[in-house]
């Protein structure tokens, strides 16, 4: 007689595994370890030059070539900062660089957003061909255009002014247009229709509905554009002659003369020049994260 209360025993086979085979957990662990090693290596490559720059900027000029190298200066000094600030005319440089970078980048981002919106959302003849041409311009190396643009700006009388550095960018840049078009194209068409029925024209739809939704892209473009403008060396070098118009990179370069390398001053200046970029990055960081949070409208 079988006992009805206890269920019949079922046979579950134990999986047979070689002593050397790895389970899922072990395999995951190994993948993780490798991933972290690669990341740590990458981080070291990024951080060491940065650390060396800051370290050098805090040393006096005699102790920079000591062997073995002093990673953390034994007698840190801020003297280099004071000197660089004055000798390199950094206050002037900050004003110049900020003006050039901020005006051109704001203009660049807004114009690129407008163009990206048009490419993504408006139907007009030749749209795709135009967009193709725009992408092609991205593939032309900058140096190729150096001489033609120089000739053009000379004829416009823009040499030794900030105009060549600011005005061309105000019409948007191909990469920024491309990025914003790709983003606007992903937003649902119903949003545009809803705005239309609500009474918005194209510009209002752009300004009140699409632009606010593109904040993450705007922040990204602003940071990228600002860094590019702030660090630009070749542009100002070619177009600017008067020292009082120089942005920071040119002023720092002046610290290196033919016979003398002022490493400590240069590093102090470079550290100072880096601060606005760091600040900007931390300020806009949350928008990068936000871009993930803005998913769909249906939900």
């Amino acid at each position, binding site marked *: 007689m079988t006992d009805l209360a206890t269920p019949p025993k079922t046979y579950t086979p134990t999986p047979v595994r070689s002593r050397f085979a790895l389970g899922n957990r072990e395999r995951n662990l190994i993948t993780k370890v490798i991933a972290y090693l690669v990341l740590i290596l990458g981080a070291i490559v990024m951080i060491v030059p940065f650390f060396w720059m800051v370290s050098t900027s805090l040393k006096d000029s005699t102790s920079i070539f000591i062997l073995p190298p002093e990673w953390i200066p034994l007698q840190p000094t801020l003297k280099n900062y004071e000197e660089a600030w004055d000798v390199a005319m950094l206050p002037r440089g900050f004003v110049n660089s900020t003006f050039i970078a901020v005006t051109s980048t704001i203009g660049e981002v807004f114009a690129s957003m407008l163009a990206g919106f048009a490419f993504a959302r408006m139907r007009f003849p030749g749209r795709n061909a135009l967009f193709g041409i725009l992408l092609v311009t991205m593939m032309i190396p900058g140096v190729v255009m150096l001489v033609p643009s120089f000739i053009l700006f000379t004829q416009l009388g823009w040499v030794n002014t900030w105009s060549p550095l600011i005005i061309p960018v105000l019409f948007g840049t191909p990469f920024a247009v491309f990025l914003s078009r790709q983003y606007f194209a992903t937003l*649902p068409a119903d949003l545009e229709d*809803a705005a239309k*029925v609500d009474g918005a024209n194209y510009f209002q739809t752009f300004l009140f509905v699409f632009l606010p939704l593109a904040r993450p892209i705007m922040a990204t473009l602003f940071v990228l554009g600002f860094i590019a403008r702030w660090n630009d060396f070749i542009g100002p070098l070619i177009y600017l002659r008067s020292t009082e118009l120089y942005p920071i990179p040119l002023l720092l370069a002046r610290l290196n003369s033919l016979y003398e390398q002022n490493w400590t001053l240069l590093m102090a200046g470079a550290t100072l020049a880096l601060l606005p970029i760091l600040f900007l990055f931390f300020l806009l960081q949350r928008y990068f994260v936000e871009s993930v949070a803005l998913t769909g409208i249906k939900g």
Partner: protein
Amino acid sequence: MQLTFVEGLPVASVTFNHVYKRYGSTIVVKDLNISIKDKEFLVFVGPSGCGKSTSLRMLAGLEEISDGEILIGDRVVNNVAPKDRDVAMVFQSYALYPHMTVYDNMAFGLKLRKTPKQIIDERVQEAAKNLGIAHLLERRPRQLSGGQRQRVAVGRAIVREPSVFLMDEPLSNLDAKLRVEARSFISKLHQRLETTFIYVTHDQVEAMTMGTRICVLSAGELQQIDSPFNLYHNPRNVFVAGFIGSPSMNFFDAIVREVDSHLMVDTGVFQLQIPTERSAIYRSHVGKPVILGIRPEDIHDMDYEPPGIVPSKIEANVDVIEQMGNEMIIYLEEGEKNFIARTDPRTRARIGGRMGLTINMDNMHLFDKTTELSLAYEDKQQKSHAPV
């Protein structure tokens, strides 16, 4: 635009006049002629791709009209921008602005029209109160449930106080229970606002329960426009007959014959007698091929046939039985022809067994085999004194 004002709301009629929509060589909407009265609740219904949404979008101004004209009131709006058409629309996806609060979503249209702040505030608050979303005004769309979003989308349309409300499948993203609630909520809204509603759906239940009139579209063409009652009881053609009603009407290829001065419909498997009082209309079709249409509820279990009908008895094999509690859906087969009956839940049918059935021929429909038009449509339409 000729407008009458009822409780502050402008009311307008809508007319489609030989409207076409083409994309290249594809015709999406073909010669659409509809006149929608003031305060009417008109439902566009049809299978997907039938042109119902396109028609609504043409009316809203979101699609261009390829040919013909659309009038709101007595103004041709073909070249009028959406914002100047005085329409508001509720989208299937709701299309709420994700970066704005519920309040701003509702106020957006009014702000664009430079409505004074105080009036905006009054209207938004009032609409929010009526819709039961007053406590959500500071939230953003992503913090709302599907039902709440749907109400916000309706609220955004209401505050505009438009002369025509357009709704494009507004309930299809809701779950079944919410959808039933939302249906009656929108019907009530229509009664309260007393303005013209034009509603698009592919769901015939929504169409039947909400519309004062229903416009059935198929392949871009208007099939029939009528009250829910007439649409059900006097479909103009085979498409409408099959589309409205669930389970759908059974169709049999048949021939009309005259036997001993009685008219019979001969499907090859069944010979059914046409009631004498309905014979006159069909007499001219004797010998011609027709399509016989019988709704599942007009096929009864022989043991439970309702009194007062002219019964026609047949037998069939039982394939599948679905017991619904209040009724029974029986899938039948006879002579390689499948059909469905909706019978009394007490029916004692067995799967695989034979079953005796009674067909109520008073409610049958006959359609021309080639044109697929109902043979009795005109006649019934004249006699119809059904509630509209």
